[in-house]
């Protein structure tokens, strides 16, 4: 059935967009910084994965993904410690932080291009077999892994954010930072954890994406993916972490459906960003809405 094929493909891509959106929204909600550098981390993570799995060391896929995630977590933490935290201590405005973030993205991307001079990356696949067919739906082995690992990661992150003490602190600092600080908590510790977790989610999204595709990586591709994940976060609900999940699934489904309906041109951006504009103008808090205590 063709429709089910679209839905399955859409779910799989949507999970990846959701992960990236959660990575961005973790930083954006806790620190109010428009973390465009997340696109840079995404690109960097793909090159890290490539470096460890194919180029020189030829490690098994999951080991390479693990190493890429650890390095991206370190990079995310470095960005926070070197760029955002000094600006925060200087009480810089959010506009200034956003421009600094753009600078970080440019820097990370150009350094990646300098180190890894070639642009042609053909990633290693998980299994070399042909795509399995299930009820006449075409799913490759990579897509199954993408779906399984991505969903598992999403569930873990969302449960972490909702149930654990740290998750409550993330939500508290995103609601009101000064109140949180005046209650005696350490803002910097939460910021550190938020950036590390964000780096982990972004790297996971990036490595899973490259595992399942055969295409090359370039600067504009990471930026395009990031902007779609941003749209996913906005559609689902900017200040709700669950909104990233819903928004990501919507964007993924929209991608597959627009690929299927209009086969000659890619109107995905028009659909997704049109939806973003409509949501922003008429229901600014997104689909899930702002969670407030009812008085």
């Amino acid at each position: 059935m063709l429709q089910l094929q679209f839905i399955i493909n859409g779910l799989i891509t949507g999970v990846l967009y959701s992960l990236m959106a959660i990575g961005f929204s973790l930083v954006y909600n806790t620190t109010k910084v428009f973390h465009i550098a997340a696109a840079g981390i995404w690109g960097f993570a793909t090159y890290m994965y490539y470096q460890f799995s194919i180029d020189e060391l030829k490690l098994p896929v999951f080991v390479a993904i693990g190493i890429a995630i650890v390095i991206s977590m370190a990079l995310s933490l470095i960005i926070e410690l070197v760029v955002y935290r000094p600006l925060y201590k200087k009480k810089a405005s959010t506009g200034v932080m956003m421009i600094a973030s753009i600078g970080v993205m440019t820097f990370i991307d150009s350094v990646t291009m300098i180190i890894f001079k070639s642009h042609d990356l053909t990633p290693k696949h998980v299994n070399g077999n042909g795509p399995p067919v299930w009820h006449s739906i075409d799913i490759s082995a990579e897509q199954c892994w993408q779906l399984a690992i991505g969903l598992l990661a999403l569930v873990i992150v969302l449960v972490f954010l909702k149930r654990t003490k740290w998750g409550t602190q993330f939500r508290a600092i995103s609601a009101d930072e000064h109140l949180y600080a005046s209650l005696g908590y350490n803002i910097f510790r939460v910021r550190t954890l938020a950036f590390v977790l964000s780096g982990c989610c972004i790297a996971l999204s990036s490595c899973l994406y490259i595992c399942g595709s055969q295409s090359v990586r370039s600067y504009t591709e990471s930026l395009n993916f990031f902007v779609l994940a941003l749209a996913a976060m906005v559609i689902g609900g900017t200040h709700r972490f669950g909104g990233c999940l819903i928004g990501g699934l919507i964007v993924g489904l929209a991608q597959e459906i627009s690929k299927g309906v209009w086969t000659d041109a890619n109107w995905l951006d028009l659909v997704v960003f049109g939806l973003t504009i409509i949501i922003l103008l008429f229901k600014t808090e997104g689909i899930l809405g702002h969670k407030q205590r009812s008085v």
Partner: protein
Amino acid sequence: MSAVYINLILFTFCVYAILTISASLTTGLGEMLTMCQAAFFGIGGYVGVFFLNHLNYSIVEVALLVMLVTGISSLFISYASTRLKGDPFIIVTLSFQMIVYCLIYNWRTVTGGDSGIYTQSLKVLFTWELPQNYHWILALATLFLVVLLYQYLKRTPYGRLLRGIRHNDQIIASYGKNVNLLKAQTFFISAALSGLAGVLYASESQYIQPGMLSLDCSILVITALFIGGKDNWKGVFIGVFIVFFLRDFFDVSRWPAQLRPSQNIVKNVTLIGNIERALYGLLLILLMYFRPQGLIKDNTQSSLTRRKETK
């Protein structure tokens, strides 16, 4: 140094300087950060090419028409600015940029899609023709007029109102000024100037393609603006020089044939281009920490109140 190359480098600088000055009007003076300058640039370019190819007007007439059309296309952004502020507004401009790019890239019957449209126009003013290599005179003259307009706008009460909106728009509204109309006017002028830059770009390179209006270009405009100094023309010139001019200087494919180096030097030039990008990324981070106003501050009398602002 051939006339072609001089034409090229002067034109590149002028076109991007006009584009960045138009961005400075909204982002620098008015403090409404927009990510869609490249969208207006592209709309201006494509509409200009349409007029140049089909209607056979001269460049100046086409530029005036295009400024009107691009200004009208900014009405949506003005509407969004009345309802949203700050980060949601930035995301709306980002979405507008992506939608315009998607439309122009995919609507192949009208815009030619990825393959672009070629154009050729020597008519500069009504029927007065100018050889292609001397079009830099037109570009310089236009840049001069745009800078004059920009300075004029800053010194008039209009400029003061814009700075007031940047500071606190509720106070301006309580004086009885129509803040929404003011913002709409600012976006109109900014989009019109971006469209003008687009027409100039199209007439100089004689070829337009969707790459000129990518999100990448919008981000470069913002970068140039904030490196140089977002609210004065000298800062804009410095920013454009660092970000756009040096990049195109290192873009080997645009060099005239006799200057083009051999293949094994080309890879090093790409490396130098990436190093230059890394350096100005680093410069942007350092500037935002040490000197958020950019390299060149606005110290003129018309901006006296700025000294108290900590940003």
